[in-house]
């Protein structure tokens, strides 16, 4: 059964090596708080994409707070959508 990964820290501080070791095919990722800066690295065309073959969401409130735009093809949810994701997936893994 797949997991919802909640990534709350910027790409520079979250340990990407550990994330890669644990995130599985079919898992869902939601980027919240400083995690939304992943929109500027992992998913940007210039850098090697790591998670964009997975179902990924960016939390709208945190994007707006930081003035960060998403690139074409990125999906967003608000907090209610976040709740819905947590209900859909049988478990969550928080990264902070």
């Amino acid at each position, binding site marked *: 059964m797949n*997991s919802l990964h909640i990534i709350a820290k910027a790409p520079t501080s979250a340990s990407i*090596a*550990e994330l*890669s*070791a*644990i995130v*599985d095919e079919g898992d869902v990722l939601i980027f919240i708080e400083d995690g939304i800066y992943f929109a500027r690295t992992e998913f940007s065309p210039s850098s090697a994409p790591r998670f964009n073959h997975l179902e990924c969401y960016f939390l709208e409130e945190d994007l707006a707070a930081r003035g960060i735009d998403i690139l074409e093809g990125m999906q967003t949810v608000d907090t209610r959508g976040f709740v819905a994701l947590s209900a859909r997936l049988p*478990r*969550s*893994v928080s990264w902070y």
Partner: protein
Amino acid sequence: MDNDISNKQTISLIARRAPYGSDGARQTLDIAFAAAVFEKSLNYIFIGDGVFQLVAGQSPKVISSKPLGAALETLELYGISEVFVHRDSLLSRGLTESQLVCRAFLIEDCALKQLIAESTYVINL
């Protein structure tokens, strides 16, 4: 009954912080002990800088901290035997199995993903 439900649940603890610098390692250990008292099924997974928690020969008295390695040595006494160490994390830090304070299963990414997929809850402080 509740007991049936409890016993069906498995909690995976991901220990990925170095000891002493922050409180995270100790917090995860305390949850492990509490879960053991409630006879929960438990996976204790050391990964990333968390593998440093298991290094033998820690003497934190000089920095006024309580020894963590010594506490981890006693896990088996509390019935916690599902202790896993992420092999790549260990090797990339120049450590070997013989330097660890307790017995642990060395695992690769695929086995790790499997453990997570079979867990009811994952606590990753």
